[in-house]
């Protein structure tokens, strides 16, 4: 059996977790203060995910870029591939907060959405 020490990042408390693994299977999670910590410990050791935030170019707007995020967390290993896809895009103003920029980010099934609005110039 193997143990991994992690810091839970689900909330700012940052509990120190100890995850015990038997191969790929999580046997136990300790050190968490709440249930979300347990779920994080399991996910982090089996299929870690992160929310991606970045910016996308905008044409004809009052700002040259608009901030975006993956609406949910995507697999951690997919971050750089997703950045490439994000950097290929150019939007046209106006755009509103929450607009879908990419329906399915790199096959994750998660959309990329804007996190602010940009008015037309």
């Amino acid at each position, binding site marked *: 059996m193997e143990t991994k020490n992690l810091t839970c990042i689900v909330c700012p408390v*940052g509990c120190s977790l100890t995850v015990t693994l038997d191969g790929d299977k999580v046997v136990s999670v300790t050190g968490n203060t709440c249930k979300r910590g347990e779920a994080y410990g399991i996910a982090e050791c089996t299929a870690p995910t992160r929310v991606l935030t970045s910016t996308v170019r905008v044409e004809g707007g009052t700002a040259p870029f608009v901030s975006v995020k993956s609406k949910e967390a995507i697999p951690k290993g997919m971050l750089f591939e997703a950045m490439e896809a994000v950097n290929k895009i150019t939007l046209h103003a106006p755009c509103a907060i929450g607009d879908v920029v990419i329906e399915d980010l790199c096959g994750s099934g998660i959309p990329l959405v804007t996190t602010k609005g940009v008015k037309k110039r």
Partner: protein
Amino acid sequence: METLDLVIVGGGPAGMAAALGAYEEGIRKMLILDREPQLGGILEQCIHNGFGLHRFGEELTGPEYADRYIQKVTELQIPYRLQTMVLNIHMAEDRDKLITAVNEEDGLFTVKAKAVVLAMGCRERNRGALNTPGTRPAGIYTAGAAQKFVNIKGYMPGKKVVILGSGDIGLIMARRMTLEGAKVEAVCEIQPYSGGLTRNIVQCLEDFDIPLLLSHTITQIHGKKRVTGVTIAQVDERKNPIPGTERYIECDTVLLSVGLIPENELSLGAGVQLDGVTGGALVDETRQTSLPGVFACGNVLHVHDLVDYVSEESDLAGRNAAKYIRHQKAEATIQRKITASGGVRYVIPQTIHLPVTEDQRFYFRVGDIYNKVKITVKSGDEVLYQKGKAKVVPGEMESVAIKADVLNRAGADLEVTLVQEGK
């Protein structure tokens, strides 16, 4: 001259929450002044997520968090003027305040208000305040300036980066620049612990194998026109570089993330008394400063790590400004000081007027990492409150909530301190 009930200096998260708090208490004749072209303050450039977990129970990005407040301010038609620089605040003879500001449209103008909320936020410490030897080549930025370049203007300040200081903005920028293709060589932190939130160390450094070098500093920046590299070294307990530990790292960019300072030039000009530790105003439980009718909240009062607490504090300041305007503040009978000791660096508020009718929350920061402590609030020798905590760290603000009746019993000044578990 325009006469108002309330003027709020700053339209970031603090200013907007204060305005909404005052609105809910019935104040309508108010005005928010901000120097930027949009409301939202620094949140506009904080495109990462992690905001709002306490306040909204979900993880929002900075612009999304700001948008929730901008929507409300707009909906309630709370007046604001943007690209407006407040130049000074004066106390008039009748205790009203005169706020002088300038913008393109109105030119120089002065408004009169019964109360003022200071919500100007903070600024970053820069290299000048740090004494790093070397020439002054291009390629040295504060982390916040780099954040603005990358996230708002869309250009990268460099390709190979060393970050001095492990404040949250520096950590966030380590990830951001890595995702945009830069190589972040190292984050050097002079303290033996990080100044940032644990979650940022995990998500921004560990995720990308960026080394966090604790007890390390940059001893020299190389390069004539542009940064070509830095010399780093380990430091001893007294923060002096240890000879023989120097190492050269090639880089074209140095980011500084070495702390934030409340931006209090206006407050000082008005005559507000400041706390030497926080760099912000001395306030009472209503967040009123040493000047009657002048309130302070958010990062101009003390630097917060979570915007959620900025909103909470500013809502309180706004509501209390409204009560002041309506002359509703109960006549205080006793004033008690609240001091910090035993590892606690500072406490907000610094004074309290008793009796109080509502339970009170004291916010504080510690000066070092402490394990297994009892956060203790004392009045003289009497322990009013105690709470065990597995770990407290300088990077994360702590707070304790104390019942009104417990406080009202206090027979002496108050003290917030740490007691080692088992003692």
